[in-house]
């Protein structure tokens, strides 16, 4: 049966992509970003860390497409190499909170009762903080390291997945086909893991894609205020922070290009999320 499902999903995906070029472009861009991150060291025209003071603060030119920074490092090279770190942080954080949040949330939504109440309280406490501030405090407390940025980003994402999975499971737990699965001899745990979760996943995938964008913004924001990533490591947020000192004197390229990189990464994940919503909705399949 799974072969039928796969081929029909593929066909449906192709159908949706044809009718929705924006999603196709977003998907292509996401792929491009991933490739850029993977092959970064080979793609970068210059060494991203080697400084050359004589060539400092040069505007974009044929030699340095995106100009050079205050230490004469090539902005384009730093940008390319930075994509590795930025994407890794975001993807890891989102994956961790997704895995944890969806299972916990689904169990809460199905079982209700004491577990649900306890988890609900925990989520309330997390949500009582402005999330960026919470992430800031956690990185400060746990130590100024990249791993802690990942942990902090994962934790502030957690409430969304828990709540989302909980709500989605909760509205489905009394549907006919869920009860039918039990009448067919499935245990509660099997119903949650093998029946409800797969049905909730499409909606979660949309959420995940949108969250990737948000996670990138958060991580970049943290390093912009000097947390986590330390110079001279190339990272988009820290590049903007370093360039900020020169904006009042008109050195726009130091801010604009890493800013553009951030923006396009976030935009691409957001558009992809919107597109996924259409693709994964089985009701629209024909």
């Amino acid at each position, binding site marked *: 049966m799974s072969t039928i499902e796969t081929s029909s999903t593929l066909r449906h995906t192709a159908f949706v992509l044809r009718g929705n070029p924006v999603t196709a472009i977003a998907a292509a861009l996401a792929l491009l970003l991933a490739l850029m991150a993977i092959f970064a060291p080979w793609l970068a025209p210059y060494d991203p860390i080697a400084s050359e003071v004589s060539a400092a603060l040069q505007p974009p030119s044929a030699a340095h497409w995106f100009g050079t920074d205050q230490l004469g490092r090539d902005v384009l090279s730093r940008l390319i190499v930075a994509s590795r770190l930025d994407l890794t942080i975001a993807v890891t954080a989102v994956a961790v909170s997704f895995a944890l949040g969806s299972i916990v949330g689904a169990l809460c939504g199905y079982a209700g009762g004491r577990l649900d109440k306890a988890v609900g309280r925990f989520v309330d406490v997390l949500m009582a903080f402005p999330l960026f501030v919470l992430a800031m405090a956690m990185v400060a407390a746990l130590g100024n390291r990249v791993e802690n940025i990942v942990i902090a980003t994962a934790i502030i994402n957690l409430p969304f997945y828990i709540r989302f999975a909980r709500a989605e499971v909760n509205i489905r737990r009394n549907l006919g086909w869920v009860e039918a699965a*039990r009448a067919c001899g499935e245990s509660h745990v099997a119903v949650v893991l093998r029946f409800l979760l797969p049905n909730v996943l499409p909606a979660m995938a949309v959420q995940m894609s949108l969250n990737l964008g948000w996670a990138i913004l958060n991580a970049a924001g943290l390093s912009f205020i000097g947390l986590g990533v330390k110079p001279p490591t190339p990272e988009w947020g820290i590049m903007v922070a370093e360039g900020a000192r020169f904006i009042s004197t008109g050195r726009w390229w130091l801010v604009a290009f890493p800013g553009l990189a951030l923006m396009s990464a976030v935009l691409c994940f957001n558009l992809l999320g919107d597109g996924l919503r259409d693709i994964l909705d*089985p009701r629209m399949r024909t």
Partner: protein
Amino acid sequence: MIGSDNSKPLLEVENLKVTFSTRRGLVEAVRGVSLSLQPGEMLGLVGESGSGKSVTGFAITHLLDKAGRIADGAIRFKGQDITRAGGADLRSLHGAAMSMIFQNPRAALNPIRTIGQQVADAILAHRRLSRQEAQAEALNLLKAVQIRDPERRMSAYPHELSGGMCQRVMIAIAISCSPQLLIADEPTTGLDVTTQKVVMDLLAKIAAERGMATILITHDLGLAARYCARVVVMEQGRLVEEAAPLTLFHRPQHPYTKRLVAASPTATSRIEDLVPDGDGIPLIEVTELPPPPHGTPLLLDVKNIVKRFDDGTIGVADFSMTMRGGESVGLVGESGSGKSTTSRMICRLLDPSEGEILFDGQSIGGIPARDFHRSELRKDIQIVFQDPNDSLNPRYTAFDCIAHPLYRLMNMRSGDTMRQRVEECAERVGLPRELLSRFPHQLSGGQKARVGIARAIACKPRLLVLDEPTAALDVSVQAVVLQLLNKLRREDNLAFLFVSHDLNVVRMMCDRTIVLRTGAIVEQGESRALFANPQTDYTRELVDAVPHIAPPMALQVCTV
């Protein structure tokens, strides 16, 4: 034709065509409908889902969604062509000349505005009054639609009223500026039978008092027959027959009308009458089952079960019943009567708070619902669910759905035996083999219902719980499904616990009937006797409220 032909019609619709633009291009929902309506007349517009009956109503009142468009034809109101009316013309028509009441009355009212304000808004749309005067007028209207305690209800919000009350408010809004034409789109669908009758009676009375012409759009032939002097039947966007109800029901002309009339259950119809020409499934020999020999052990013995929910409310209070193998018992009640909760407890998906359930002599009430999936008896008690849309896993094909219980409960692993068994089940429920690879959203409502039934009978259960199995289906599909269920029951000697709000269906399907109200048994007995001669007021009220296909006059003839 009833009504004098020499008087000028209030409304004339000529060759009306309505198209909708959808993702798959233009879809023609109404394909050339012509009808006319005299002042003060009540016309029934009857059809199944997709017949275009509501679209016709919305086209007349110019309330189609953005996607819909009147493609051709003419609509004349009091001789004036309003087909292309727009802007100010339309505003002066809406409410003042024609208005509409809708299905799902609670959603049709603004949730954050008080009842009084909303009625006053409607009044002020066409009359120059002060707010106070409008409020006073609104109060009068609420009195006219017989809302209890109208002064207090003026400041109530829709969510504080029952569905029936909301529909009365909707009627008050619709008649606030004395329109000459009222279009009622499924005004009582979704309401309980008793409320349904009260609301319809009120509507008929108001229309008669005010001389307001009414178009009653409904899927229920019986309802149209009870209230309308003339009925128009629609199928697939076309008008197929028009007649007085009596003529329509006794001498239907069009094949579709014939099928529809036959499929609509009446107070006297039998299962085998529903589908006269055996559409789809081969007609089966129906023979009365001999009464079970004395001393056969009880299949099901439910003793004093009670269900208390976590929030303290009592869903079921002290329910007892017994069933023999192969017997069919109906469980009847309005919403909130606890019939679904009871059925869930019996098929062990929900734990009773108190009481005992014996199945084939074995106690199963004590096994927590959480562990019942491991019980030997799981495959003996199966269930068919209400809404076919919700009852199939969207990620399973029809084949997977039917194979699921075989895999879990009969330990059948994929392979030829499994395939054979699934195909056999599909064949028994009349599901074509080529549909087995489809996903639920690629099947029609009736086909989904068949998959649900095939899944339930796959393991050859002894007791089948049917939770409103046809409530979401059109009558013609319902007729076929009921026949199918009856056939399966007789072939397998299955016991049915048939949960339904539809008394006519229960009477046909069940040997015995239990009437529930707010979690307690009101009355029980042999079905025919119970419906012919109800012993309690509540049951009598229920029975009386059922709209019958035969109009009042004919009904008297029948009962004599």
